[in-house]
């Protein structure tokens, strides 16, 4: 189980190498990386110049561990790595990575999507967007909650 909350940039290839190291039963790795976009239509100028990411130390790690445990009970997975950055980020900076290793690709694809969908609604992170005119806390997207709920309907 590898969960990292950090200010520093992460290296997706290094994280993936560490995940598959010494495990010859892994047949598939799927990774998702989220980046800071420079466009948001809720900003007056639509143009984001910086994002500040805050979290709840302690609860974040617990929430991510719970999501990972739930994913592992739903699919048989070999290994999971979740990294989320905090602090000041700029457009094009990677924010989050979810890497899932399993024996076959289907489980890895599904589990990776499941983990990022639950991370969006259950892990206590908050984004503040900064433009030349505004500083606004990002609002919740209904779509994120719909995506999470859809997992409970699937068998």
């Amino acid at each position, binding site marked *: 189980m590898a969960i990292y909350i950090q200010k520093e940039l992460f290296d997706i290839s290094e994280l993936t190498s560490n995940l598959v190291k010494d495990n010859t039963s892994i047949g598939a790795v799927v990774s998702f990386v989220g980046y800071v976009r420079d466009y948001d239509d809720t900003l007056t100028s639509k143009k984001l110049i910086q994002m500040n990411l805050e979290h709840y130390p302690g*609860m974040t790690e617990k929430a991510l561990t719970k999501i990972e445990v739930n994913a592992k009970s739903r699919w048989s997975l070999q290994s999971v790595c979740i990294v989320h950055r905090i602090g000041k980020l700029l457009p094009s900076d990677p*924010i*989050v990575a979810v890497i899932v290793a399993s024996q076959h690709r289907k489980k890895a694809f599904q589990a990776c999507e499941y983990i990022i969908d639950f991370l969006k*609604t259950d892990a*206590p*992170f*908050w984004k503040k967007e900064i433009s030349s005119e505004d500083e606004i*806390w990002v609002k919740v997207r209904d779509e994120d909650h719909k995506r999470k709920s859809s997992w409970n309907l699937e068998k």
Partner: protein
Amino acid sequence: MKINILFFASVREMFKTHKKDVEILDSENSPNKLLNILSKREGGSWALLLNEKDSVRVAINQELCGWDDMLNDGDELAFFPPITGG
């Protein structure tokens, strides 16, 4: 009893502080009751928080919870806006 309160994101900005320890009566043992009593007793940011309660989430001891869940002496109670990570 003593409750250790934490604020995050927009709620932290509302209170201009990250944490506050409060003393409440044993009968004021839910986030809902605590917020109502502090809003009456102290007003200010507490009254603002009560006003925006529908868009505020609560956690007791680092687990998301309901407004009527039970608080115990020494608990960590957190108020924050809906989560927007990832």
